[in-house]
């Protein structure tokens, strides 16, 4: 997302978008890049990923969504027991859950759940999902959280095919 796009989102509709530099002589964007970011983006920077990994994740999600027409999302955090039910609950909260694919990773519990909606399931069979889950789990076991998610998304998207 560019600076202009984020400003257009954060400022109210109808009025001219405020710049990140509200007044002359304020901090520059290089000194305080937080000025252009949403609270979610700042939260994400505190996470386990570097900026480069976050950018690659963003790119992977966008490409997967565009190519397949499904909605891919990745949740990384603790899941309540039973993990499968909790992951399905999260999946139901997505808009258009039938065509959504949720990859839920819980590093503390060492659990990985891939949930495909009823429509997405026709494109990504459970066997394909299991194949992606195996390669993701292999990467996670080596400590590569971002790489595992990236390769999993790539496999799921290529199994789903183009829309």
């Amino acid at each position, binding site marked *: 997302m560019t600076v202009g796009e984020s400003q257009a989102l954060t400022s109210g509709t109808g009025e001219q978008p405020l710049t990140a530099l509200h007044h002359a002589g304020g901090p520059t964007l290089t000194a305080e890049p937080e000025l252009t970011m949403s609270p*979610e983006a700042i*939260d*994400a920077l*505190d*996470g*386990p*990923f570097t900026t480069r990994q976050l950018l690659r*994740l*963003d790119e992977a*999600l966008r490409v*997967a969504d565009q190519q397949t027409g499904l*909605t*891919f*999302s*990745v*949740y*990384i*955090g*603790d899941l309540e027991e039973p993990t*499968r039910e909790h992951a*399905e*609950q*999260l*999946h*139901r*909260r*997505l*808009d*258009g*859950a*039938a065509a959504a694919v949720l990859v839920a990773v819980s*590093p*503390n519990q*060492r*659990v*990985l*759940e*891939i*949930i*495909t*909606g*009823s*429509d*997405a*399931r026709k494109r*990504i*069979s*459970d066997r394909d*999902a*299991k194949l*992606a*889950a*195996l390669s*993701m*789990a292999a990467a*996670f*076991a*080596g*400590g590569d*959280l971002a790489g595992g998610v990236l390769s999993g998304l790539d496999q799921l998207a290529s199994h789903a095919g183009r829309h």
Partner: protein
Amino acid sequence: MSIFSTILVFAGIPLGIILVVAALVASGSSRTRPARRYRPGRPYDFRPIWFLASPAQVTPALAGKAAPALEAGIIEDSSGAQVRPGPTGGASDRW
């Protein structure tokens, strides 16, 4: 060469170099942020994050705040019978 200058050259200079290198090593490790990496077996104490290509599609405020009531949980048809959502698929794994 006197004993003094011998000691100065063969002990003083190496010692000085060692001290300089040690000082550089100690001062270079002042990283404020801890190692932000997941390692299997170590505790993972980051806040939950949810990535989505367009974040407007998910109900906001997962991190920190209470989860909102699930709206899509129970759907009823005209006769009042519960309509279950289509079956979800997928896979699970552990590592």
